[in-house]
């Protein structure tokens, strides 16, 4: 049979089966079990309506329970047993073993970096693009182009970036763009400008923005002594601490920028530069996820009532003040949702690290660590234990989301 035809039939059967379930189960409920006829019509309809949510939910609950719920418990079980001993219960031995491995701690440290940088950068860029393209004529084209990486698989993206990071010996033409640019620097004024002045400006700007944001976060707490119940004090404090840390980080890197002796004229193995290589890997994910953030945030920006912006204009706010003081607070909810989604992606994505460095040169992350344990070392105990750690890391986000969902229900 023609594969196209075969595919079509299979598709029809699959989708039809699904539609059929919903249709016929409802029909049976309404027509056979609790027919809306006869003397008990009213009661029957009521009863049918009590059953119906479960009809609607059944496939979802079934699939979720089976494909996601069950593995969670299975993982928990595996993480407490040892297969080489025939599945004997070993308590926390796997966890102990994992904790003893420096690679694990390296992965934890890197993961923390990823968890801060990638969601922040993706959301930040997404927001920036969403805002900037909002009112320009070719905004939709720009958005489409920036969304494009979403269509590229992680592995494909890794290929693309490997080409970018490629290094060739010094006297041969570089085929990696990054090194080609790097080789242009010679320690002269150009390099001074691009490698020291520019980063200094960027870093100072970044520190400034973060510092200002931190100030905004803390301001309501210290200002106007408790005149108002400030919402989310703990969240604000955490945010503020994070902000202070980021400011400190950027200021200390400033020192690095001016004291470091860049190895001019030598092609760099970007993926092997310790610490920095993490960032080169993160760039890939940021490149992909920005499109996602942008799409959702741009919709949220459009949802802001125009009048509030006009009111701010009349109040004398400049474009930056409008953006930071009027727009951002109003779409905070969306920002957090986007942030959450990307955070979860970060925790789960291992393909990029796997394909580009496989965790070597100190780039290990938890997801790849887990994959390593599961499929290379065939150590299901430790692999499952690390999976549990991944899930644990998500708990704060989970709690927050559950809290939100409950609030919304009320």
């Amino acid at each position: 049979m023609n594969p196209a035809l075969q595919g079509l039939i299979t598709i029809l059967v699959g989708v039809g089966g699904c539609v059929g379930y919903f249709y016929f189960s409802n029909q049976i409920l309404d027509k056979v079990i609790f027919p809306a006829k006869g003397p008990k019509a009213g009661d029957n309809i009521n009863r049918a309506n009590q059953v119906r949510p479960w009809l609607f939910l059944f496939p979802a609950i079934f699939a979720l329970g089976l494909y996601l719920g069950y593995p969670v418990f299975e993982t928990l079980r595996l993480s407490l047993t040892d297969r080489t001993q025939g599945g004997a219960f070993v308590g926390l031995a796997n966890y102990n073993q994992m904790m003893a491995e420096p690679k694990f701690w390296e992965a934890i440290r890197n993961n923390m970096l990823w968890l801060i940088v990638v969601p922040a950068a993706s959301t930040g860029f997404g927001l920036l693009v969403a805002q900037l393209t909002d009112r320009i004529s070719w905004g939709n084209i720009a958005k489409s182009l920036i969304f494009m990486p979403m269509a590229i698989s992680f592995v494909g993206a890794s290929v693309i970036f490997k080409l970018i990071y490629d290094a060739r010996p010094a006297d041969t033409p570089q085929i990696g763009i990054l090194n080609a640019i790097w080789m242009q620097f010679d320690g002269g004024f150009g390099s001074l400008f691009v490698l020291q002045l520019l980063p200094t400006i960027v870093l100072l700007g970044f520190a400034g923005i973060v510092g200002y944001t931190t100030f905004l976060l803390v301001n309501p707490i210290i200002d106007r002594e408790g005149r108002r119940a400030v919402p989310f004090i703990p969240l604000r404090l955490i945010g503020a601490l994070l902000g202070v840390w980021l400011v400190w980080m950027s200021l200390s890197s400033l020192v690095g920028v001016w004291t470091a002796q860049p190895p001019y004229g030598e092609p760099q193995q970007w993926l092997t530069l310790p610490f920095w290589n993490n960032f080169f890997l993160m760039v890939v994910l940021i490149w992909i996820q920005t499109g996602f953030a942008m799409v959702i945030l741009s919709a949220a920006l459009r949802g802001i009532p125009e009048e509030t912006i006009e009111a701010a204009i009349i109040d004398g706010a400049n474009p930056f003040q409008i953006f930071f003081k009027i727009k951002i607070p109003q779409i905070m909810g969306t920002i957090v949702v986007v942030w959450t989604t990307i955070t979860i992606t970060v925790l789960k994505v291992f393909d990029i690290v796997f394909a580009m460095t496989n965790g070597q040169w100190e780039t290990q992350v938890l997801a790849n660590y887990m994959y390593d344990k599961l499929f290379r070392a065939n150590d299901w105990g430790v692999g499952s234990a690390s999976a549990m750690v991944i899930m644990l890391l998500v708990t704060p986000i989970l709690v927050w989301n559950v809290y939100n969902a409950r609030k919304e229900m009320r």
Partner: protein
Amino acid sequence: MADLKLTKIVKSYGDVEVLHGIDLEIESGEFVVFVGPSGCGKSTLLRTIAGLERITAGTMEIDGRVVNNIPPSERGIAMVFQTYALYPHMTVYDNMAFGMRLAKKSKQEIEDRVRNAADILQLGPYLDRLPKALSGGQRQRVAIGRAICRDPKVFLFDEPLSNLDAALRVATRIEIAKLNETMPDTTMIYVTHDQVEAMTLADRIVVLRGGYVEQVGAPMDLYHKPANLFVAQFIGSPAMNILDGSVASASSGKVAVDVESGGKATVPIAGTGAKAGDAVKLGVRPEDLRIAGKGETPIVNGMIDIVEALGEVTLLYVQVEGHEEAVLAKLPGYHQVERGTAISLTADAEQLHLFDSDGHSMARKAEAKEAA
């Protein structure tokens, strides 16, 4: 303390010209209301004054200074939006303080001004609330308060009451009237759909239609001396009844009209232009109609279609032959009348309005004299 002068203001969106050269002068401290049917350009005109829209041509002057290119925040205006446009993430206090903070006013001054505005509008207890915890009327007051805090020279309102329910609308309207009195130097420009608001608040009303100014004048002038059919029908609620007719005879100072549906009327008109046989339109307000006494020539004969008794007045919808729309009469007091009974209505000659076939009002005798 600002007079506005608009000269040949044109505003186009792309190819669509929305305002076709508006000339308008507004004096310092005046309360001017823009009215007009939906889409006539009221909001657009207001927004060009605010600077939220750039004008395509013409000159806009505030206090003698051309402001065509001055950004909104520097025009000394404040604006209250139909949807309140409160910043949802800020408390009432912050909403009001926002503009002043941006202007780097001192803490003390901000505090003072906010308190002052809150006092005027009785918002004191709500300063720490977020807008979503306020009722509609309170929100609108916050929006007004925010504008007051700016201490503007020109106060702009774009249908500020249309989202409120009837009772609140009345209450807030009165507050705005009071505000106008407490700030006698502030020019206020107010856009509304609502008859009553326009009539009660305005020093002068500007009637707009399709991007043109139809008439400018004090409320009672518009009510009594509409410049044309449009204004006549637009001002006053329920709207003026318009009856087709023709001139039976035109003596100097008096025009006798045969109403198409059979009635007759004589209108005192400064004797210009009208001659027997001309098609004219006769306007008479529902509240001017009364049941024709014996011996009086009725203007309208018809059959009662609907009776609405509102307590102090009774509305009669009278079906008149050859006239599609019912003629509405508003009679004071309570009238027990049956649907379907025949009725004859008349009105005092002084209350009648006559329009030529182009819809222009024919000046009444008294007015013509005045004008002379």
